[in-house]
């Protein structure tokens, strides 16, 4: 058992690791839930047209990341319309708690 000054860094590191593991598990489950509709419609395709709905109007930070997923065709309030988005990247994006939902998009503007 480690005692003395190294006890604090050890305990804090364990707490951070537990938090990180819990956070990863929770956001993964949330991402799966948000992606369910997209997965149903485009199960075999690696690319999909999707609508991302955020909990607020996107800022430059969110737009920059969305542009890495696919082609951002338009924004409408809290919604981002993406064409040919990489589904695995969208799933990563959907882990964020500020992504409210992810829906399939028929591509019509």
């Amino acid at each position, binding site marked *: 058992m480690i005692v*003395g*000054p*190294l006890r*604090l*860094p050890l305990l*804090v590191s364990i707490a951070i690791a537990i938090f990180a593991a819990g956070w990863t598990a929770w956001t993964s489950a949330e991402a799966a839930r948000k992606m369910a509709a997209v997965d149903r419609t485009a199960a075999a395709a690696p690319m999909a047209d999707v609508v991302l709905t955020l*909990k*607020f109007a996107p*800022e430059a*930070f*969110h737009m*920059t990341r969305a542009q890495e997923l696919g082609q951002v065709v338009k924004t409408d309030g809290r919604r981002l319309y993406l064409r040919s988005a990489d589904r695995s990247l969208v799933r990563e994006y959907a882990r*964020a*708690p*500020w992504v409210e939902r992810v829906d399939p998009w028929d591509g019509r503007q």
Partner: protein
Amino acid sequence: MKASRGRILKGIAGIAALLLAWQVSVPLVGLEPYLYPSPLRVWAAFVDLMQKGILPVYLVDSLGRYAAGTACGVVLGVGLGILIGIDATASRILGPFISFMFAIVEVAWIPIFVIWWGYGLKTILMVIAYVSFFPVLYNTIVGMRTVPAVMVNAARSLGAGRLEVLTEVMIPAALPNIITGFRVGSGFAFRGMIFAEIIAAKTGVGYLIFEGATNQQTDRTMVGMFVIGLTWLFIDHVYVKPVEQVTIERWRTVTRADERE
């Protein structure tokens, strides 16, 4: 225990009084919020940045760069410091060059690094490593040179070879200095990281500070400043200080140079 609790309470009271004075001064000064935001406004900006996921991502990015850059600087600093500390020829060859480089502040290097490696991770890592390198190097050199000669001679008389003297006597004896260098260097590295992120990054807490000022979101800039200060306090208190304490307790074998034979 009571004295410690009293000190903490006094510290909290001091910070609370400062925040109150700041809040009260805002209507009295009468400046626009983008020039002089209140602490409540700064708090609201902090909550907003957390809810929008911006601050956590920037903080994680910054901490990753900081850890990698500091590790590079420390490894290089300790390695070269040991070499210069034990070898007179290396000291004569590298000494003037290192002194020359030490005088060139990291901000002056950033444009050159940007030309060589562009905006992004490499440039930022180089700046952080550069900043943390010198305190570690100089403290390691001092640590190696102030190892009491009597200890080295005693080890040699007992049959220790050069490598054993280095690893069993000199490096452990220099450890308190090396750790002091690490502590100073890791603090400087934090500043270097902010400089680098302001100029060469599109994420990170340094970028947040710069972006906030550019967009006249001074409250966000202040959030970035507070986060930097608090993060360093956390790292120093939770990780750096305990390691320093353990090292000094275990290896308090350094004596002053004038005590050497």
